[in-house]
């Protein structure tokens, strides 16, 4: 094991933006150039000194090589401290790690991007890539589901993308009051309403695992092939190098072989309890 990959590099927080009540986006220095560029769907290990380390997906435009953007929900001891970091404070950085979204493999196809809750963060970097290379992809549809209108992540950006003639955005929430004029219901229910070509579509899905399972069922019912469905799995990544086994998912190490995995590789494991 290379020492370099296990030692966090101190980098500065450049900016911090509140997205939702408990969700913040941090812009960090990218650190060493030798680290290599991040790819959409990859993650970094972010270390709050003296507290702990957590895996956080890249949520920014991966072409911006001088900075790294991560969106963090403050839910545990480490992520709470991480989300509270102020500009110029220091955080430890290891990465990038893992296999990202199949951006090159998907060229020439239609893309169905399905996000639930904070799952939009790892997919945002894929959206940036697609918009930067718009001519390489066919029809692009983004489905986003979340709890309520107050929980819509990157709301202004979703609105901006929806204004584009070459990008479709469909947002649905689990519940809302009467001020909400949009859709209410679960994301998988939107799949049959889209009228897309399942044989020429690559689906990228990220969200809570239950939502992904229901979405995969809807995609398969619509005729999307298993090998054209990609999921970003979330597990307890620790070493991020496939050595410690904390994130083992059957024969797969989510940190090294994922976090983005084709559905046909995890098909048998998704519905198992206590995985």
């Amino acid at each position: 094991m290379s020492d370099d990959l296990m030692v966090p590099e101190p980098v500065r927080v450049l900016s911090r933006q509140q997205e939702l009540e408990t969700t913040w986006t941090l812009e960090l220095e990218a650190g060493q150039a030798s680290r290599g560029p991040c790819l959409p769907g990859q993650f970094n290990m972010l270390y709050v000194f003296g507290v702990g380390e957590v895996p956080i997906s890249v949520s920014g435009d991966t072409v911006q090589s001088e900075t790294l953007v991560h969106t963090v929900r403050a839910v545990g001891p480490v992520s709470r401290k991480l989300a509270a970091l102020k500009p110029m404070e220091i955080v430890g950085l290891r990465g990038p790690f893992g296999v990202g979204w199949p951006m090159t493999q998907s060229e020439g196809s239609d893309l169905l991007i399905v996000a639930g809750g904070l799952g939009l963060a790892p997919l945002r970097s894929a959206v940036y890539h697609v918009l930067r290379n718009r001519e390489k992809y066919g029809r692009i549809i983004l489905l986003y589901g979340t709890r309520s209108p107050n929980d819509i992540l990157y709301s202004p950006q979703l609105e901006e993308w929806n204004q584009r003639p070459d990008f479709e955005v469909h947002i649905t929430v689990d519940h809302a009051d009467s001020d909400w004029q949009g859709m209410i219901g679960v994301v998988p229910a939107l799949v049959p309403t889209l009228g897309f070509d399942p044989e020429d579509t690559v689906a990228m899905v990220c969200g809570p695992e239950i939502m992904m399972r229901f979405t995969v069922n809807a995609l398969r019912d619509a005729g999307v092939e298993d090998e054209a469905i990609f999921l970003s799995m979330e597990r307890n990544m620790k070493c991020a190098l496939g050595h410690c086994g904390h994130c083992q998912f059957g024969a797969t190490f989510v940190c090294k072989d994922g976090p983005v995995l084709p559905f046909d590789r995890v098909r048998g494991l998704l519905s198992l309890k206590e995985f």
Partner: protein
Amino acid sequence: MKDIAQIVGEHPFFQGLESDFCNLVCGCARNVRFNPGEYLFHEGGDANHMFLIRYGQVALEVAVPGKPAVSFQTLHDGDLVGVSWILPPYHWAYDARAITLTRAIAMDAHCLRKKCDDDPVLGYEVLKRLLPILTSRLHATQMQILDVYGAPEPPE
């Protein structure tokens, strides 16, 4: 201008129904229109109709004491609104409010139930079309109850 038989026959709920059956159910149908904010029905009211949306958007909602009503589902073009008409005691279980201008087919529930009772083959056809809708709404409700987007405490 389309007549009611064409409109009913083209709606996804009745699409593919044998023409004899289609003519039969058309006798229970009429066109209705709801302006934004107008209610199709209210919780506890008599479920005298089944509504088939031609176009528009309808929110299903429940009243919460002391708070604004909570919407838990929206229905759109081609969807069916209201299933309480088929099961006694035929009372609506929630409110349905038009969000946008909504045009729909209102099927008279007494009329449709009688025709289904009189001809079990028609009744079975109608049930076969209702059941997938009920099943998919049940699955959706399961996901909503699980509140999957709530933040779990991670093993940090």
